[in-house]
């Protein structure tokens, strides 16, 4: 079978200098003068370029549903924009053998002054539908959006939910050979999301080729036959979606940091202070996304000026604003005394199969027992996420925060007597 999309050595370069520079003649003029004065050749400012994508090659066959994942800034949106021809590549070659529709946003070009009916025609044609096609699908679109009563009301009077429903209904009736979708599915209520996901599934099963970008690895596993992982503009992995999403989760996500640096000057005047807190996997790799089947390691980097037997370091672990537990290095029975001066790193290992699905927060603690707290704030500084590992047991694949509540999910012993 031949590829419907083939991408070869695709690269896209942005000039960061050009972005930093303002958007007026005066700024451009300033820049010119400055470069004349400093006798800089234009080529010397080459350090100010950024490769949003570099050397990306892959092929996609007709009927495949490809999930594109990666951190913020990994180049996902740039890839979509090039594939949908909104912006051109700097290098490389793409061949696309079919009619493409790109959904980088729903409701693009909606005009608030126009009615729902008028916007269906306008938006439909913006998305590449022919007038006759819109006419024939009009009733279906209106029914899909559940919008019959308001179809002749100006869109600016719609609630945001109605607006999104109408916008999505139009998009859902696109019927291209290749559909490119950005994270538009993340909008709307649960029921509506289900509808949209169903539509993508339908397109995939109907032999359409779909590419979509998301942060939601669950969605990729559910919908995509194949996934592509981008990292810092380069293609890191492409293949079967389970393998690629696992790799992504292993990379951790950087949406939020996995490390907190203490910048409170008052803390640093005490006899000991916490310089940083970080979360890592069992083997020391920085991460903030874990499976229930993995160890979570919380590391504290301390500076101890005056050693004290009564020095206590630890943290409160909270979830949904409730303290799940407090733990400190002196805790029975493995109590650890910090008697050394200087830089010390202490780690706490939270065992596998102990935490539940969800986001946990760390509130660091440092004190001299029964005398004095050495931290000048009590607040969460870092969070990490835990997801139930579906591979552990077939029962777990359907567990979500909604049907599996609880602050912890420890592995306990069950026996029949």
């Amino acid at each position, binding site marked *: 079978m031949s590829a419907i999309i083939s991408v070869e050595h695709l690269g896209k370069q942005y000039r960061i200098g050009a972005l930093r520079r303002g958007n007026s003649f005066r700024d451009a003029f300033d820049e010119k003068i400055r470069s004349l004065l400093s006798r800089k050749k234009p080529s010397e400012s080459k350090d100010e370029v950024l490769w949003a994508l570099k050397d990306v090659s892959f092929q996609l066959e007709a009927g495949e549903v490809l999930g594109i994942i990666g951190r913020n800034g990994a180049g996902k949106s740039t890839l979509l924009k090039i594939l949908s021809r909104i912006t051109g*590549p700097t290098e490389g070659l793409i061949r696309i053998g079919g009619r*493409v529709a*790109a959904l980088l946003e729903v409701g693009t070009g909606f*005009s608030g002054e*126009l009615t729902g009916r008028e916007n269906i025609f306008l938006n439909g044609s*913006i998305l590449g539908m022919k007038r006759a096609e819109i006419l024939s699908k009009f009733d279906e679109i209106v029914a899909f959006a559940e919008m019959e009563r308001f179809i002749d009301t100006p869109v600016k009077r719609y609630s945001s939910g109605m607006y999104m429903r109408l916008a999505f209904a139009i998009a859902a009736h696109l019927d291209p050979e290749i559909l490119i979708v950005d994270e538009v599915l993340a909008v709307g209520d649960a029921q509506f999301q289900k509808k949209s996901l169903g539509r993508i599934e339908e397109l995939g099963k109907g032999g359409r080729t779909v590419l979509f970008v998301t942060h939601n690895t669950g969605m990729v596993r559910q919908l995509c036959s194949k996934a592509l992982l981008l990292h810092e503009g380069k293609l890191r992995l492409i293949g079967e979606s389970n393998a690629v999403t696992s790799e992504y989760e292993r990379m951790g996500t950087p949406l939020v940091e996995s490390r907190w640096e203490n910048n409170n000057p008052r803390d640093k005047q005490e006899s000991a202070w916490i310089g940083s807190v970080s979360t890592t996997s069992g083997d020391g790799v920085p991460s903030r996304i874990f499976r229930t089947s993995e160890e979570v390691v919380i590391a504290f980097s301390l500076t101890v000026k005056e050693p004290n037997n009564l020095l206590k370091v630890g943290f409160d672990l909270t979830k949904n604003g409730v303290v799940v537990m407090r733990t400190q290095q002196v805790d029975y029975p493995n109590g650890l005394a910090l008697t050394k001066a200087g830089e010390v790193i202490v780690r706490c290992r939270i065992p596998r199969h102990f935490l539940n699905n969800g986001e946990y927060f760390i509130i660091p603690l440092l004190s001299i027992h029964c005398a004095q707290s050495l931290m000048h704030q009590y607040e969460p500084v870092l969070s990490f996420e835990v997801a139930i590992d579906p591979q552990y047991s077939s029962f777990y694949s359907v567990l979500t925060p909604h049907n599996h509540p609880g602050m912890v999910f420890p592995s306990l012993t069950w026996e029949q007597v």
Partner: protein
Amino acid sequence: MNDEVVIKPTHGLSALRLREIWEFRELFYFLVWRDIKVRYKQTFLGAAWAIARPLMGMVVLTIVFNKLVGFSVAGVPYLLFTFCGVVAWNFFSEGVSGASQSLLANANLISKVYFPRIIIPAAAILSGLLDFVIAFSLALVLMIYFHFVPTWTIAILPVFVVLTIVTSLGIGFWFSSISVQYRDIGHALPYIIQVLLWITPVGYAANKIPSEYQLLYWMNPIVCVIEGFRWSMLHTGTMPLTLVALSVCVAGVLFVTGLMNFLRMERRFADVI
């Protein structure tokens, strides 16, 4: 796969893909339709603005040039004389300002959807045609009111309408593509249009300009447009053919260079807008 699309880096001028523009003709039509529909939404006078604006322009310019300065034109009521100028001028000036700001006004389309960008400024200019037709009909009504009978020359009018469109497109291509990068255009535009108004014979006749400056004067293609409108509708004097040719050439150069510049900048629109 016969309609395979190849995406690769483009340098210099990207081609003017006429076939592709033709494929997007429905989008073009819908954008014109939207601009027309939205133009007078939530206004008290509504489409009556298409009549009110040229009438106001006519009254002001007649007062200034006829009553205050004392200009007059033999055989033509001055009100009618200015009105013909204002009809053409409004079509031009609204087209140019609409087109110049059109890319920014449709920034979300540019950053989210692919289509030949040239459609946007072109649609902005053509959506002014309806207002023009309304104002032009009013001119015909005024001619009846003043018992003014047009001659065969009115058949030449479409030529000057086309010249207006070509000039507006040329300037619109230039300004809109520059404004994507430099927002200065938005600030300068009202003044540029104002200055143009005074160096264009909207409220007076072109022959009021000293003869040694006529050549320079007619380098402004809108001079030719306005004079042409009056000549074909009111049969005022004769058209100086060499000067007309000069105006047409300038309009052509504006159009071609504007188009080329637009096509050169086009591929960066989504990145810088």
